[in-house]
Each structure stands twice: as C-alpha cells, then as structure tokens.
C-alpha cells in the first residue's frame, strides 16, 4: 500500500499567530509552508511548488490581489489554485459576489478549520 502523497499548501499571511495555528491544524493532512512576508511569497511559491495557495488579501507592502497577479503570470504557477482569505469582507458580500474576488474564490475570516479544509479539498479536486 502506497501512502498518498500529501498535497502542498502555501499559506501567505502576515498574521504570524494565524499562520502558526493554521499550520498546526492542517499539518496532519497537508504539507504546509507558511510565508509571512508577501514580497517573498512568489519566490517561496516557485521553490515550494504548492498544489494550492491560501492568500491573505490585506497585507503590508504587497496585497493579495497583486501577488495573485504575479503568481498567475509565472508559468510554472499559473495553474495553481489560489483561495483568498479576507478579514475585510462580510460573509453576505462573499455570497453576493458569488464567492469570488477578482475571479478567485475566497473565504471570509474567521473561518473554521472544517470550512477551510472543505474549501481546500474542493479546489484541489477542481
């Protein structure tokens, strides 16, 4: 029996406490890498080669939208699913926007571990 290879999740968020705890929660199921400096996130992604990227929207120096554009413009990363995490949106807004920000799916903080996993699974399979 061959163990299923863990999927690689890159989490880009400047909230150190959050990234530490989300890593703890996801580590059993996924191979998680955290990047707290958005300006280093592209390089990290190129090196880490994630299967999915969780991207905070509001970050200092480089916001999630800009970073998503750079990722999409990078050949080896352009097919990687990106899910935004935002602390600035109400869940109703998520619904009214069809769950999308700039064409990317997003989750409104605070999100439970269960919902986060469900979302990750959904987009890993798509």
């Amino acid at each position, binding site marked *: 029996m061959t163990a299923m290879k863990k999927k690689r999740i890159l989490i880009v968020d400047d909230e150190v*406490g959050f990234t530490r705890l989300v890593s703890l929660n996801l580590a059993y199921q996924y191979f998680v890498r955290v990047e707290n400096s958005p300006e280093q996130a592209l390089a990290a992604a190129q090196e880490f080669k994630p299967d999915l990227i969780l991207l905070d929207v509001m970050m200092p120096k480089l916001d999630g939208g800009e970073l998503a554009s750079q990722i999409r413009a990078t050949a080896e990363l352009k097919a990687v699913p990106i899910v935004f995490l935002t602390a600035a949106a109400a869940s109703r807004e998520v619904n*009214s926007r069809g769950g999308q920000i700039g064409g990317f799916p997003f989750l409104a903080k605070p999100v439970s571990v269960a919902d986060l996993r469900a979302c990750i699974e959904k987009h890993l399979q798509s």
Partner: protein
Amino acid sequence: MEEEAIMETREDLGLVQGRTGFTGLIFRLFRQLSITRNLPFSHARAGYHGRVDPKTKSWPLKILEPFTETAAKQRVLLIEDSRVDAQVIRNMIDQAAHSVFHLEEVETLSGGLQRLEHGGIELVLLDLSLPDSPKDQTFTKLHSAVSHLPIIILSGIDDQDFANQKVQEGAQDYLIKGQFDARLLLRSMRYAIKRKRAEIALAQERELLRALLHNIPDRIYFKDEKSRFIRINPALTAHFKLSDPHAAIGKTDFDFFTVEHAQAAYEDEQRILRTGHPVVGIIEKETHPDGRVTWAFTSKMPLRNKHGQIVGTFGVSRDITDIVMKEEQLKRANAELTRKSEEILKVLADLKSSNKELKNTQAHLIQAAKLESVGTLAAGVAHEVKNPLQTILMGVDYLTENFATGHETVTLVLDEMREAIKRADSIVRGLLEFSSVNQPNASEEDLNRVVEKSIGLVHYQLTKSRIQIVTDLDPAVPRLSLDRIKMEQVFINLFMNAIQAMANGGTLTVRTRLIRFEEAQLLTGPAARHFKIGDGAVLVEVNDTGPGIPEELLPKIFDPFFTTKPTGKGTGLGLPVTKKIIELHSGVIDVRNLPGSGGVRVTILFRLPP
C-alpha cells in the same frame, strides 16, 4: 320782470359765492349775462375786492347792499335852481301815497356835489340849467363825480336827440318839465335806482368773469353751434400762439390743431349740442400741425341762452402735458423697476436653488464623508478584529480536535469560546454592512417578486416557529428601481425580527399596495414629510402578532447597536441597515405598534416613478 331778474341775479350770485368749482362759476355767470344782457347799463367801478381765498378757492364777492324798500326812506337829492320847479317836484313826491323817498334840495351844482360828498344819497334829480354850470356840461360833471349814483335829468329842453345823448352818457332817465306827473316821476325814480343797482351788479359780474377769464391758467373758450370760437381767454390765446383773443373768433379747432384732434373735439361738441350732455373730466391728446403733442384735462358744457336753448358749447381745459409726461416717465420707470425686480427675484430664486443644491451637495458630501470614514473605520476594525478572531478560532479548533475528546468540560469551554468568536464576528460583519450601504445597485425589479423570494428564504424559520404567513400582494404595483439584494436584506431583516417576536407562533402578514394620498389624514408619520396630497406611492406592510415594542423604545429602534434581543441574539444593526437601504431608495419606513390587538406594523413607502 326787471325786478325779478335782479332778484335772480342776487340769488345766483349768492350761490356762486359758496361754490368752489370754476366751471360752475362760469356757467352761472354766463346765465347772468344771458338774463340781464338787455338791461341798460354803463360801466361802473369794480365791485369786488381782495384775492382768491386759498382755502375755499372762491372769490370774496362784495354783493349789493341788502335791498329793502321798506326800510328807512331813500334819500333823493334835487339839484334845481328854480324854486317853483323844486316845489312842484317836492309836491309830487310828498303827495304820493306810501312815498319811500325823502327829498333834499340844493340850487347849484357845487352845492349838490358838496352834499353828495357826505353820502347817503341814493338818487339825484338834476336840472341841467344851473347858475354855476352850463347846461350841456352839468350832467357830465355830476356823472363823472358820482357815477355810482343813478341820475334822472329833469329839463325844460324838449329835444329828443339831446335826451337820447344824455341817456347814452349814463342818465337813467330824461324827463321834460311839465310833461310828467307824480306817477311817472316816482316810477322813473324807482326804476332808476333799481336799474342802477342792476348795472353795478352786472358790472361786478362782468368784472368777475373778466378776472376769471384773464387770470385763470386754464384754457376757457366759448363756441357757437358750428364749433366756431366766440370767445377765448388769454390762456387759450397763448396756447394758440395768438397775440389777441379776438383773432380766434370765427375760427375752429381745425385752424389750430391737426385734423385728428380737431375732428374728435368737433364730434364731442356736436354730440353735446344734440344731447345736452356735458363731457366732464376727459383727457384729450392734442396734436398740433407743428408736430407738438399736448395733453389736456377737459370739461365741455352745452351753452344755453336765456330760454334754455343750446346755442353752442363752452369748455375748460387744463394743460396736463407735464403731468402726462411725468406719468409716462413714471410708468416707464415702474416697468423698468418691475422688470428689474423680476430679474432680481429670478436671480434670487436661482441663488436659492443653487444654495439649496449646494446644501444638498454639502449634506451628501458630509454624509458620504461620514459614511466613508465609518466605512474606513469599519474596514479597519474588521481587519484588526477578524484576524485575532481567526487566530483564536484556529486555536479553539486545534484544541477541540486534539485535546477535547473525552474531556467534557474542555469541550464545553471551547464551544463557549467558539460562540463568543461568532458573536464578535457577527458584530463586525453588521458594522461592515452598515457602513457599506451607500450606493444601491438598482435595476427595474418586481417588488412583489422580491417579497416572495425573501419569504422563501425565511421559510424554514417560519415553519420552525409555527408562524402562519399571509401574503396580500397587489398586482397593480409597478416595477420599481431597486437594489434586489439589498431589498432582500431589508425584508429578511424585517421577517426575522417578526419571527423572533413570535417565538410561540403567530401570523406574519405581508401586504403590498399601489396607493395615492387623497386625504391629509393618510399623510401621517414620516410620510407627511416626504409626500403631499395627490402623490402616488407603493406601500409595503409587514405585520406581526407578537407582543409589540414598548412605546418608550420606539424612538430608538433605528439607532445603531440598539437591540431588545437577548445578548448574543441581535447586533442592533438590523433596523439601522434596513432604514438606510430604504432611504437609499428614496423611501420611508415607519414602525409602530398595532392598536388594540398588539403586534407591530412596519410600513414602507416608495415614491412612484414620475
């Protein structure tokens, strides 16, 4: 007949004295002339004194002394050098029954003049052949000294021509000695006195008329039946630019004015001649051949002879050219003033309108700035609060998954913490929603459809709380410009409030209506400020059968964060958000308790599209 005439003259003068209108004065004076013109008279000294009374505008006439024959006897002076003749005269006078004369006698002209200087004599009987005066000069000398007294010549000269000459010179009568008896003498004496008085009165009238015609600045004219001038006064003479009033006699208005004015005046006068109706106080435009235009305030009267027959016209015109010109200037100035005033009013209205727009814009800007700052604040708060909440939630979930199993108390603690996170999150989300409601994303929507969809979204809660739903949606309600998602949020908020108020079941009634405010009593509450009689509106009513809202809390229900729900059940932002969304749609919302049965009625009114 003569006596009657004199009496009438006196009465008329008495009347004239009290009148103020100069037209009436002329009329009456002319009547005097008509009546008395056949009387013999000679010039007498002026009988009036003084000037026009500025208060009464009337002439201070000095009328004849009271005329009474029954008073003291009238003194008669006989100037006769013949004692025989004097005796005869005396006998005639004394023997007459009821004689009213007292005779005094002198024998010379100088004696007579001397006596007359003392006054009191009312008639002189004069013999021409006196020792101190040649007979052809006697009358002249006496008459020139006392022209105001009637003189009867008693002469032995039986010469008709001589007699006529003396009468023409002013003698009242010429009686030939030996050819008259007492009756003739006394009648002649009576008539002489009366006639002389009439002459003086007439002279006074003439003088008054002359003074009037010569001094009044108004233009006065008399015309015959063919509208030819028979007399004009100096004012009209000057107006016609003539040097002599007589130059106008026989001429007509056609000689002085253009045909336009002359014809109109001629027609006026001919009508007066036909009908006898005067033309009083008309304003005439006078056009002159040299192009001048003058204006006159004119009255025209029928001119009647002593038999009352109309023989011409007369009139008075006052030159009001200056007044008319000033009036024209005033009218132009007034028109200009009105125009400017209208301009000012228009500018003022524009300014008011601009000011109102500015205020509205300012209010919107302030509101937008407020919203923007609230929005910015809310977003900032959301970011700063939600991130820690997220971290805490991650931690709670981690602890739940890894350490709670089998530890009931730990599970309980972690569940409480999770609930607290949700509560904090819902507050932040409400704040975000409240601050993000500023611009509706509107399109033409079927309001009834939006209501039905919103009911569908709370169907589970309705069923769960055993609440019966009654809908009464008016198909006449037109499509409205609405932000569908925000309006759904409004109805869901209202329905959820109603559901929570009817935890033990009840009835939720939703009604829509197309209405028109036909009566003032319909315009109550917020509607009174937003609508007026005749306005159309779409009404939505949401009624519940819950316990209602305490009256003292009603004014606060739209305040942010005000809630009557238990802690953790309400954010206090539902109704403020609802009100904001309604107002964004230019609608009004009113919440009140239903009378009697309890429950709450929420009324929403949308203005009909124009």
